[in-house]
């Protein structure tokens, strides 16, 4: 059996007809010919009035033929030339008819119109404005609902809150400990190199203790939780949105913000201060480890030096910051989740953007706190 490649022949007959001859085996993976030769014939000096097809030599065909004919017919339509499908195999004719059976939805593609740069800048600006307004509205709703929670009128399930406290608190302990210990080590090393040259190695204890208590402990806990819980909240709420579970809450008469967002905010507000304290202690232990093993400081000396350096006010300030970061992480995660689109990839995007939003908010708040605490002299 000989296989012949797909071939095309063109022939102008005397009565103003262009005959397109299809032959050989047409096979989609081998490619689809362009309709350009036909267009050249149509625009040549002998402009045909009709296009006919002849397929007697066609040995095998698939979608490639239908695609090619679609292109040819499109070209003919543009040049106002009639097409006669009579010479085509019945199957091809039926497929062509089927593809045309439902007319193209004219406005369904409306959104993808070509837009100029100016228009795009305008649209993006309007969208940005809208998204800021939406975010503010969401934050407002969350605070109203928190108010209802405080006076005991919010609708949520205790069991959900306990589960969230467990997930955001206890289950986060190992990773917070690891990061805090390592950062304590790093701070101590950096400090030791500088301070040893002045013979003031003991001040490593002050450095690590004060840094941990004032800022670093809260920041460590916050960044770990933004990656852990912020992303998890966004993914949970996003997938609930995809599955219409949030609509179902709303039509049951339960506010999704009270039912889903408030317990998450409360869980983080309760757990973040504790995680901050925990990170403080573990971080100081990291410093202690460096102090006793590398700097030959005694355990008691290091401990006393730390206790003298770290004031209660700075510990309380750090814990307070931790609580505020908790609100930011929870609100950012829930906001992104509630705004998520209705597809699997949109849920992934929501989780990513929850982490980014959360960390940006944390760093901005940390900066603001530094200024405020400096001015207040704490």
């Amino acid at each position, binding site marked *: 059996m000989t296989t012949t490649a797909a071939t095309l022949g063109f022939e102008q007959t005397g009565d103003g007809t262009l005959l397109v001859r299809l032959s050989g085996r047409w096979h989609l993976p081998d490619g689809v010919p362009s309709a350009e030769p036909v267009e050249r014939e149509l625009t040549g000096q002998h402009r045909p009035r009709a296009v006919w097809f002849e397929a007697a030599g066609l040995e095998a065909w698939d979608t490639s033929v239908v695609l090619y004919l679609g292109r040819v017919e499109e070209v003919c339509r543009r040049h106002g030339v009639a097409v006669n499908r009579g010479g085509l195999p019945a199957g091809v004719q039926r497929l062509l008819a089927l593809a045309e059976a439902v007319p193209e939805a004219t*406005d369904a593609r*409306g*959104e993808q119109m070509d837009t100029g740069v100016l228009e795009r800048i305008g649209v993006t600006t309007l969208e940005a404005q809208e998204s800021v307004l939406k975010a503010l509205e969401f934050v407002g709703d969350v605070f109203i609902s928190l108010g209802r929670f405080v006076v005991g009128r919010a*609708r949520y*399930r205790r069991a*959900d809150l306990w589960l969230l406290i467990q997930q955001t608190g206890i289950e986060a302990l190992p990773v917070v400990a690891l990061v805090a210990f390592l950062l304590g080590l790093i701070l101590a090393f950096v400090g030791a190199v500088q301070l040893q040259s002045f013979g003031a190695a003991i001040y490593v204890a002050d450095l690590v203790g004060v840094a941990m208590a004032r800022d670093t402990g809260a920041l460590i806990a916050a960044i770990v939780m933004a990656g852990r819980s912020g992303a998890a909240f966004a993914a949970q709420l996003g*997938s*609930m949105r995809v*599955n*219409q*579970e949030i*609509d*179902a*809450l*709303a*039509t*049951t*008469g*339960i506010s999704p913000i009270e039912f889903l967002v408030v317990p998450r905010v409360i869980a983080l507000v309760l757990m973040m201060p504790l995680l901050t304290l925990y990170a403080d202690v573990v971080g100081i232990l990291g410093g202690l480890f460096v102090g006793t093993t590398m700097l030959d400081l005694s355990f008691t000396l290091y401990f006393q030096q730390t206790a003298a350096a770290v004031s209660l006010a700075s510990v309380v300030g750090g814990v307070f910051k931790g609580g505020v970061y908790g609100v930011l992480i929870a609100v950012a995660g829930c906001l992104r989740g509630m705004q998520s689109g209705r597809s699997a990839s949109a849920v992934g995007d929501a989780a990513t953007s929850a982490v980014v939003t959360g960390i940006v908010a944390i760093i901005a708040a940390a900066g603001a706190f530094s200024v405020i605490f400096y001015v207040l002299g704490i």
Partner: protein
Amino acid sequence: MADAHITVRNLTMAYGSFVLQRDLNFAVNRGDIFVVMGGSGCGKSTLLRHLIGLNEPAQGEVFYGEESFTHADPARRELLVRRIGVLYQSGALWSSMTLAENVGVPLEEFTDLSAAEVREVASLKLSLVGLKGFEDFYPSQISGGMQKRAGLARAMALDPDILFFDEPSAGLDPISSRRLDELIVELRDSLGATIVIVTHELASIFAVGTNSIFLDAESRTMIAMGPPTELRDHADNPTVRRFLLRGENGHE
């Protein structure tokens, strides 16, 4: 005349600038089993979302009884919404809760029943939809058809005045689908509920529908209204008749 439970006046629905349907005017009477028909993508689910307040009309108004639902303040709306039950196209069960908890949530929130009583009512509702014994299963552990039935049990939890169904029988086998039809009629008769159904199932449409409208995708508005059997036999519009006769004998 029977009194109108839901009235829709000059409703236009749009996503952004994309208008789905315009100038819808109809009334659902108390005790009706009202069918919303139309081709795929013409906006039936969207109409349901407008009726239950998940989408806001681009124009026009929805009334519950004499009262405007569209212009009601949020607190009043919440009260109105509490009297309705919705079965979503996908079931939309809360995936982190068992079936009994799903059905129990509305009961816990809006009644003074004890935990044991809530559980008992949830079991009863689940047995009504043929899911007795599945109380402690999670939605991911049961089939799509079962999820739909559990969604129905949840929608019925508070014995609502109005039940909305989005394609209740899609994904059900013929016998379950028939049982669902019987259940719908039963709910209407026993609870005196008004029922609004979006469906393509001709058998169900004729078996249960007492009134209906037909939304057309091409002209973007409703092109017929009336009891389904009457539309099948006497509608002037060829599109409606073709739909109701499954595209057969659609003679002009």
